[in-house]
């Protein structure tokens, strides 16, 4: 039986507190009026002591970039923006910044819990013999699913009620031909992208995922007390049904919650791409939590072969992620169709470092580090690779969300770090508290003996 130590609880709360403070500090420093934006840009220009001192050339340069950037809000007509319009445009981006930071961090930890649930279901559906010893770790991680998905739903509701302007298609008057904000392309998609349907889908998915988690845990609890394998068979059936439900809903969720941030852009393998990213994060988290618990003396039966298997999954899913990332990138780069390629042009021009650093962190690093069979059995190697993979996929998410909401006005500052820390603290607290609720070893899982003697 695992007990949640006071230190860990304290650490989690410190993370949350520090995160909230960092967020608040930076939040009050963000510009809130167009005058402040103008003042900030002037200071910025001076700071770089550049050649573009005169107002006209300065604004002109920005106006052009924003017009062909297509990422954000108001004017996409390709017309030159006046300085006032430009300042308003930049202000809109700054107002999105804290929201996007929360959104990314919230989604990051939510997706770990969700993909962990999918991985958990795969273990039951495939009747894996190696994994029963780490099933409780997975159940613990999925405990974050309920709070995480509720937070996501609240964020989506806030966006839907126009508290922020992250989802451009939700803007007022965008589907009204008489309105100045009318956007024909978005109007054409409004049969799918409209707020009631959007929130209805989100609610349906969240209820579905949480229902499976509720029943999966119930069945596994009952199996511990049972005298036959009736509940295990139920777990198997529930897992198989959930996996079908999951792959449809995950795909639609990725269009809704991430792809619709860029409502002019579309990609067919986006659902798989998001899936690969969340899967590798979930497996990495399982490996990290397992190693932490093992090093504290719990999970005595877990041996190096279990860690080896998890590391193999980390390695393989990292490469799968890269495969999908590249498939998406290369097809769009190669055909170079303007309506699709803007997505990558804005990312490469405005987010060059995060865009390419992410490839190093998510592909090259795990590829070279986890290729060796012996290294996969060395715990601190797995931890090191795992931390880089998790950070890399945070950057991946950053690259998906930020260019669509804040465009060129991005930076990696206290708002981003603060919200990441806050949700990390919450995640640690929820997961480890849930782990302390039940014994870490399933009692009469039919495959537990095989798992105890698992040896690679």
């Amino acid at each position, binding site marked *: 039986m695992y007990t949640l130590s006071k230190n860990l609880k304290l650490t989690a709360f410190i993370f949350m507190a520090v995160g909230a403070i960092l967020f608040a500090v930076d939040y009050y420093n963000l510009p809130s009026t167009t005058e402040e934006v103008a003042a900030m840009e002037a200071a910025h220009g001076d700071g770089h002591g550049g050649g573009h001192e005169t107002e006209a050339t300065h604004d002109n340069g920005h106006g052009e970039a924003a017009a062909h950037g297509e990422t954000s809000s108001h004017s996409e007509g390709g017309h030159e923006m006046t300085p006032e319009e430009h300042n308003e445009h930049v202000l809109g981006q700054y107002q999105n910044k804290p929201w996007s930071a929360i959104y990314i961090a919230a989604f990051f930890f939510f997706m770990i819990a969700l993909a962990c649930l999918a991985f958990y279901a795969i273990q039951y559906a495939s009747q894996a013999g190696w994994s029963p010893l780490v099933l409780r770790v997975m159940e613990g991680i999925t405990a974050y699913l309920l709070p995480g998905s509720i937070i996501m739903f609240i964020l989506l509701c806030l966006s839907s009620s126009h508290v922020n302007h992250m989802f451009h298609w939700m803007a007022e008057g965008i589907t009204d031909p008489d309105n100045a904000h009318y956007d024909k392309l978005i109007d054409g998609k409004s049969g799918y992208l409209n707020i009631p349907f959007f929130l209805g889908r989100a609610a349906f998915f969240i209820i579905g995922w949480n229902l499976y988690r509720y029943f999966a845990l119930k069945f596994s609890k009952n199996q511990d007390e049972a005298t036959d394998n009736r509940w295990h068979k139920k777990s198997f059936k529930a897992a198989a049904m959930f996996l079908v439900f999951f792959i449809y809903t995950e795909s639609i969720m990725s269009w809704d919650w991430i792809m619709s941030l860029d409502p002019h852009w579309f990609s067919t393998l986006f659902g798989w791409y998001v899936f690969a990213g969340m899967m590798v994060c979930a497996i990495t988290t399982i490996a990290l939590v397992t190693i932490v618990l093992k090093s504290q003396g719990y999970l005595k039966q877990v041996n190096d072969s279990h860690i080896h298997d998890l590391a193999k999954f980390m390695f393989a899913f990292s490469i799968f992620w890269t495969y999908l990332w590249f498939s998406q*990138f*290369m097809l769009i780069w*190669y055909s170079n169709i303007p309506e699709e390629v803007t997505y990558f042009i804005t990312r490469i021009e405005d987010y060059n470092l995060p865009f390419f650093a992410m490839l190093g962190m998510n592909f090259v690093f795990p590829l070279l580090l986890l*290729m060796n069979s012996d290294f996969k059995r060395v715990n601190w190697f797995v931890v090191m690779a795992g931390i880089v993979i998790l950070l890399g996929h945070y950057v991946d998410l950053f690259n998906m969300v930020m260019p669509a909401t804040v465009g060129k006005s991005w930076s990696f500052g206290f708002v981003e770090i603060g919200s990441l820390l806050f949700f990390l603290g919450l995640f640690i607290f929820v997961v480890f508290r849930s782990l302390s609720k039940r014994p870490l070893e399933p009692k009469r899982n039919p495959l537990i003996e095989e798992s105890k003697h698992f040896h690679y």
Partner: protein
Amino acid sequence: MSTGSHVIHALYTDDDVLMNAVKEAKKKHLHINEVYTPFPVHGLDKAMGLAPTKLAITAFMYGCVGLTVAITMMNFIMIEDWPQNIGGKPSFSYIENMPAFVPIMFELTVFFAAHLMVITFYMRSRLWPFKKAENPDVRTTDDHFLMEIDASGHDAQELADFLVGTGATEINLVANEE
């Protein structure tokens, strides 16, 4: 009776019995020349104390060679030798046109790694067409397991008794052909 340059062939009909025999022979510090089995016996290499294979390391290096070949080849052909404008693809530098080369870079890496590793395996385990099969007993390709022990310097009778004790169904004393 001392045996000079002879080997003893001990035949087994079960892989579990064979594994135990190998372990006991190791315990007695007998020199096992070779073990012939009809199929891979899990853990046999560890029991015999064979060194782990380095084939994976060679494969990694061959893969690096393949990647280098692909990059050098395409950099020369597409960028240096004749940088044409083909469908508007940027051929000014390798990196600008790299996404288009990645499929070939990947395939050549896999090609070199796979084929050269297989050839290395053939060379290292001395396998090629028209090679004379080294099979001391035809039954070992079907349902028998054979452990070959160096009998030089040992009493043959004593060795045979020991091997029968480990579950051997048949013991043959064979003159060493080498």
